[in-house]
Each structure stands twice: as structure tokens, then as C-alpha cells.
């Protein structure tokens, strides 16, 4: 079939549509570019950091090449060629001030590497790679740790450019010359924190549903004027700073706090047996439920608003009790709102950091507190990235499971 100008209709249609598509693309381009630049690229680079490990091979290129010929399990020190290459590499690294960075990097794997590189750098600087050979004894003389097989084994093990070491660390294991091994028992913490984060997020989501459902129901079924006032009360916390709300919980829950004072005053609790309600899991659950509650109420409310009240009347006219009418008719219709609210609250809470830090004590902190520690204190960004990637993967798996069980089409925000 041909169009008026003689070209095939399919072609000219495609051309007309292409123009439309281009225009559509141009319209969304600002947002697309914004999302790419500010969201996809940073997340991508964060994910890449969890496996990227170029530092050892870049700082000590000759040494790493020589170490390939050395068997870390032989229990014998590497030969002179490795030491000569090491001195040559170090002289360059010291000139660029890179040896101390390498020391920091290797210190994550073996305690003492940080000061080994900082201190030995001052002396190795004075060696001349061209004339001062042989180096083996001189280097061991500078610091006897260079005469330790383990030092070289650590350098060799972590010289690969793409490593699984950070991911192993993130699940309480470590990369060793003999392969992946479990961390010693007294350093295992991360798996426990992952489990705790998931369980507590579920509890918080559950308590948000229990507390939020009646409120949403009231909002949807009261008269407009009363409902509006109630709505403002729901939204009010949104307008208050997160830190203020969290600190307010501290004032309420602490042992010399408002709730304990009232309980002691009315005689329910003895003065010397005040309740411990903060700096533990209970404190975290209470404070976070309060903070995340609006995210549960709002989707529920907008879904409940669309439920036609005549359905309930119809059910009752056919002999259903109040409970049956609610449970068989109203509740199933409101499930999409619960689903949407639960996903929102759950995903927000597993990434929560500041509230658990303030009210969580030792038993109520989440994996995100550990991520924050590795980002801002220990500077082990590789490990932080691996922990973040695992958290992201867990969320995606849960989302997928939710889709399989409940169905994502069944989630509505209104």
C-alpha cells in the first residue's frame, strides 16, 4: 500500500511516528538526564566499588608480577627478585605519596600494615633500586615484618584487580591464600545485623499496619470536616524535623523520662525499677513506627476512599454481620493499600540509619549503621559498597517475592 506521495505507507507512518517519538523523548530528556546523572551513575559506581581493587596492582606493579611466581603456601619467603621489584615500586610510590594509602588499604585485611608502610617508607626512600642490590636482607632489616611470609601472602592475595574480598567480608568471611574462609567467631557481626534489620523492619511494618489501618478507615469514613482535622494530625509529623521527633522519643522513653515519671507517680512502677524502654530494640521499634506511620496511612486512605460504601450495605442487606461484611467485602478491597503502604514502610525502614543510631543502643542498630561507619569512619568504602549492594539485592528479591505472592498489579496508591 502506498501513501499519497508514493512511498510505502508503512515507511511514511514510521517517519511520522518517529517524529512524535523524538518529541516525546525531547520532553522527558531533562528528567532522563537528571535521573541518569544523579541516580543511575552514582549507584552504578557504588556497585562497582564493591569489587574494584586496583590499588595493590597499580601501586606495586612489578612486585605483583614477580609474586605470581611465588607460592604463598610454600611457607618460604619470596626470593630476591620480589624484594628488588618491591624496592623499585616503593621508591616510585613514596615519591607520589601512595605507599601510605596502600598501607591503609591492606590494613583492612591484616592489622599492622598501616604502620608497616608508613614507617618503612621513610627508610626505603633512601635505597637506590639501581645500585643498592641485593635488597632482601636490607628490606627485612628495615622492618622484620617483611621477613614474614604472611605479609607477602596478604599482598599477593589482594593484588587481583577485581576482588570478591569485600563481598566475603560483608558476609563475615575473608579472602585468604587458601580461598574463602569464615571470619574468626569474635569478629562476626554483619550477618547478625542483616537478620536483625530484616526482622525488625518486618515488626515495624506490622505495627504500622495495626496502628495505621483504623486511622485510615476513620479518615476515609468520617465527615469531610472531621476527616480534614484528622488528616492534619497525620501530616503534622511530616513537617517536624526527623531529629526533633527522634529526640522527643528519647525524652519520653528514657528512665527519667515522661512515661516512667508518670508510671512511678501513679504507683504502677517502683521508683527503683523504672522500665528500660530506650537504647534497645523496643525504643527503635517505637520511634520508627511513629516516624514511618504516615507512609502507611496515606496509601491505605487513598485506596479506602475509592471503596464504595454501598458494597457494605449490600452485604449487610443480604444478612452479613458487621464483621463478615468487613472481613469478606471491605478488607479484601483495601488490601492494595496495605500492600503499597507495607512496601513503602519496609523499604524505608531497612535503610534507616539516624533513628536506630540515636535510640537503638547496642541491640537496636541496623546494618545501615555499619555502612555509615565504614563510609565515614573506617573509610573502607569497598566494604560499605558490598554491604549496600547486598541490601539492594535483598530488597529486589523481596520485591520479586511480593510480586509473585500478592502481585504487583495489586498495589495501588489511590
Amino acid at each position, binding site marked *: 500500500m502506498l501513501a499519497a506521495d508514493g512511498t510505502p505507507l508503512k515507511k511514511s507512518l514510521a517517519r511520522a511516528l518517529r517524529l512524535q517519538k523524538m518529541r516525546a523523548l525531547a520532553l522527558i530528556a531533562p528528567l532522563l538526564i537528571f535521573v541518569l546523572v544523579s541516580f543511575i551513575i552514582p549507584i552504578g559506581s557504588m556497585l562497582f566499588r564493591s569489587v574494584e581493587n586496583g590499588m595493590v596492582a597499580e601501586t606495586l606493579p612489578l612486585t605483583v608480577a614477580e609474586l605470581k611466581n611465588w607460592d604463598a603456601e610454600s611457607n618460604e619467603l619470596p626470593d630476591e627478585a620480589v624484594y628488588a621489584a618491591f624496592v623499585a615500586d616503593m621508591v616510585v610510590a613514596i615519591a*607520589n605519596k601512595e605507599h601510605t*594509602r596502600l598501607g591503609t588499604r591492606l590494613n583492612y585485611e591484616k*592489622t599492622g600494615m*598501616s604502620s608497616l608502610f*608508613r614507617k618503612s617508607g621513610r627508610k626505603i626512600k633512601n635505597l637506590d633500586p639501581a645500585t643498592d642490590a641485593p635488597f632482601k636482607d636490607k628490606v627485612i632489616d628495615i622492618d622484620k615484618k617483611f621477613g614474614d611470609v604472611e605479609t607477602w601472602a596478604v599482598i599477593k592475595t589482594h593484588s587481583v584487580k577485581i576482588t570478591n574480598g569485600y563481598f566475603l567480608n560483608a558476609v563475615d568471611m575473608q579472602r585468604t591464600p587458601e580461598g574463602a574462609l569464615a571470619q574468626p567467631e569474635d*569478629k562476626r*557481626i554483619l550477618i*547478625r545485623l542483616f537478620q536483625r534489620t530484616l526482622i525488625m523492619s518486618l515488626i515495624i511494618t506490622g505495627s504500622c499496619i495495626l496502628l495505621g489501618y483504623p486511622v485510615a478507615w476513620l479518615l476515609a469514613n468520617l465527615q469531610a470536616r472531621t476527616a480534614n482535622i484528622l488528616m492534619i494530625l497525620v501530616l503534622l509529623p511530616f513537617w517536624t524535623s526527623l531529629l526533633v521527633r527522634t529526640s522527643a522519643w528519647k525524652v519520653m522513653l528514657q528512665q527519667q*523520662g515522661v512515661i516512667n515519671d508518670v508510671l512511678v507517680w501513679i504507683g504502677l512502677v517502683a521508683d527503683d525499677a523504672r522500665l528500660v524502654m530506650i537504647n534497645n530494640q523496643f525504643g527503635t521499634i517505637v520511634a520508627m513506627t511513629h516516624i514511618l506511620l504516615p507512609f502507611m496511612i496515606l496509601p491505605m486512605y487513598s485506596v479506602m476512599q475509592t471503596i464504595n460504601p454501598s458494597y457494605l450495605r449490600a452485604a449487610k442487606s443480604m444478612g452479613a454481620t458487621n464483621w463478615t461484611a468487613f472481613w469478606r467485602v471491605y478488607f479484601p478491597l483495601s488490601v492494595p493499600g496495605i500492600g503499597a503502604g507495607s512496601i513503602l514502610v519496609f523499604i524505608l525502614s531497612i535503610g534507616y540509619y539516624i533513628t536506630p543510631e540515636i535510640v537503638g543502643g547496642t541491640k537496636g542498630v541496623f546494618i545501615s549503621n555499619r555502612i555509615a561507619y565504614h563510609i565515614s569512619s573506617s*573509610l573502607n568504602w569497598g566494604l560499605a559498597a558490598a554491604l549496600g549492594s547486598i541490601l539492594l539485592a535483598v530488597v529486589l528479591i523481596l520485591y520479586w517475592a511480593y510480586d509473585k505472592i500478592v502481585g504487583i498489579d495489586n498495589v495501588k496508591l489511590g
Partner: protein
Amino acid sequence: MKIKLTALAVAGALMAPAAMAQEMTIVSWGGAYSKSQLKAYHEPYSEKTGVTIINDDSSNEAVAKLRAMNEAGNITWDVVDVVASDAIRLCDEGLAMEIDADTQLAPAPDGTSASEDFGDMLVSECFIPQIVYSTTFGYRTDLVGDTPPDDICDVFDTTAYPGKRSLEKRPINNMEWALLCDGVAKEDVYDVLATPEGQDQALAKLDTIKDDVIWWSAGADTPQLLADGEVIMGSTYNGRLFSVIEEQKQPVAMLWDAQVFDLDGWIIPAGLSEERKQRALDYIYFATDTQRLADQAKYISYGPARASSAPLVGKHADLGIDMAPHMPTDPNNAKNTFLYNYEFWADYRDDINAKFQAWLAK
């Protein structure tokens, strides 16, 4: 109208570099500490040179942020206030500029060179010391009975002093105190702590009070906990306790025993443009001279890092009380002190922190 706007825009664009040249961003800790720097350093410096100083309270994340700025290739800070251990790390990472104390810092009024005046305080090539502060304990005078605690080991004695105590949520200092009170001699503490058995010993000692501890992560926590009576004693920085005791008049007193000295000071980020570097150096030269360091002690109870500043320490600017007896370095307070071991913790921080956190979570 349009022409006027354009003219304004052009004028603005032309003026921008000139305005920029008169600004510098100084990063510090915020709160009373930044205020003391504002009064003692920033205001006189601005008056003298006309440079506008912008404050940024990001010091507790300075190392991470400087590293990120360095990777992004855009360093927006000119001078940064950090604790000594962070200065050492920044120097190790190549993120801070090396300073030559004798040519780039002011000599003492009597002509003593800066390196001699600062002495042991120059713990890193990049670090310009400013104050000595200490981490020590404060206790509620009304909640500890008739015999107030006077020994660090009273912290571990829950029979004589029942009630909660607050400790920092990190191994540094706590492990040392635990070993001291478990019979390890002061000079052996770090040798013991370097061994896995020693670390277990310290954690076992801390285990005896674990149920009675509230763990803090911000310096303001212990003062609040003490003021509310949540804890009967707790560790924090001595300046925070000073303000609880003298400014807020709470029933709190200082323990001082086995206080841990630490240093705080300036670094200049590496990679500044020549012009900004010169300005930063000029500021540092001014702000760390003998008189300026002594001036800061009028506003906060931290000891000046220069030997020559100590005799110049006077009275508090608002309260009018003598500041010398409140300094951690005062002979009465410094009968039994401990110096933060930078090298040890640079090596063992990652390892012991993992164990400590695992122990906490148990």
C-alpha cells in the same frame, strides 16, 4: 529593564572572582567549640584582612568528605579542624598538605621556633596542633553517695556505685581503661592490647558492666544523660563537662583520673589553588600564634597546644572565672593521665573495632 538586568548579570560575573578571593571556608566541629574559634581566631582575622570566613560544621565526617571531594576533583574547603588521628589518616591518604612548622608557623614571642614551641604535639607532617583536650569522666555529685569516685576503676565498681554509666560506642579509650582496672600496668597497656588475649581480657572486664552502660556516639550525649540523671557517671570531652558544671550549674563534678589526652588542630587540604593555599597558610600563621591560642581558652576549657601560650591563659570571657584550673593539663588535674596512642590505633582500629562491635551486638 532587560538591559539593566544584563548589565547587572555582567557586573555580577565580573565581580564574582573578586568576591571569591575574599572568602574562605573553615570546617570545624560546631557548637561551643566553633564559637570559641569564631571569637578567638575568625573575628580578629576578618578584621585584620577583610577576608570573609564561612563556617562549615562537618569535622566529624571530614576525612570521608575530603576523600570524596578529592575524587570529584573539587575541593571546597580551605582549612579543616580535625583530631590528630584523622590528620594522620588524611596525611597518609595524601589528602592534606605537608607543613613545615618552622617556616610556615609563627615563632613564639621570645623567638623560640614553632617546632620547639609545639614540641611533641606535632604528631604528623600535615598537622598544625591547636588544643589539648581530654576524654574523662564526670559524675553526678548527688547520686554517688558520700564517697565520690576518685579512681578510674570506680567506673567498673557497680557495687560501690550502682547505676548506669555512659561510655563511648567505640573501643578507643574504653579498652585501655578496662585493662588498667584489670591490673595491667600503665606502660604495658598497649603491649597487652596488641594480643588477641589482651583484647579478650579488656572485653571481659567491660562485660562486667555491660548491662549498666549506655553507649554514646555524639559528644553531647553524656552531658544530657548526666543532666537528666539517666546516668550517674559518664565519659565525654572535658570541655563539654565544663559547660555542664560551670555554665549550666548542674550537680556534676569531674573525675579527671586516667583522663586520655588527645590533640585537635588544623590541616590544609592538598590540591588547593596557589592563591587559596597562600590564604589558608596566612590564616594558619595568624590563628596558631601564641596569643591567639591563649585567647581561645577564654571561651572553652581546652589547653593551648603551644608551651608559650600556657602562661597567658586568663579568665573566662563571660563567667569571669580563672580558666587555668579547668585545663586538662593543669597539674592538679593531670596527676594520672594517658596519651592516646596514634600509631597503635591506626593499626588496630579496624581489627579491634570489628571485635568490639561484635561484642556489643552479643
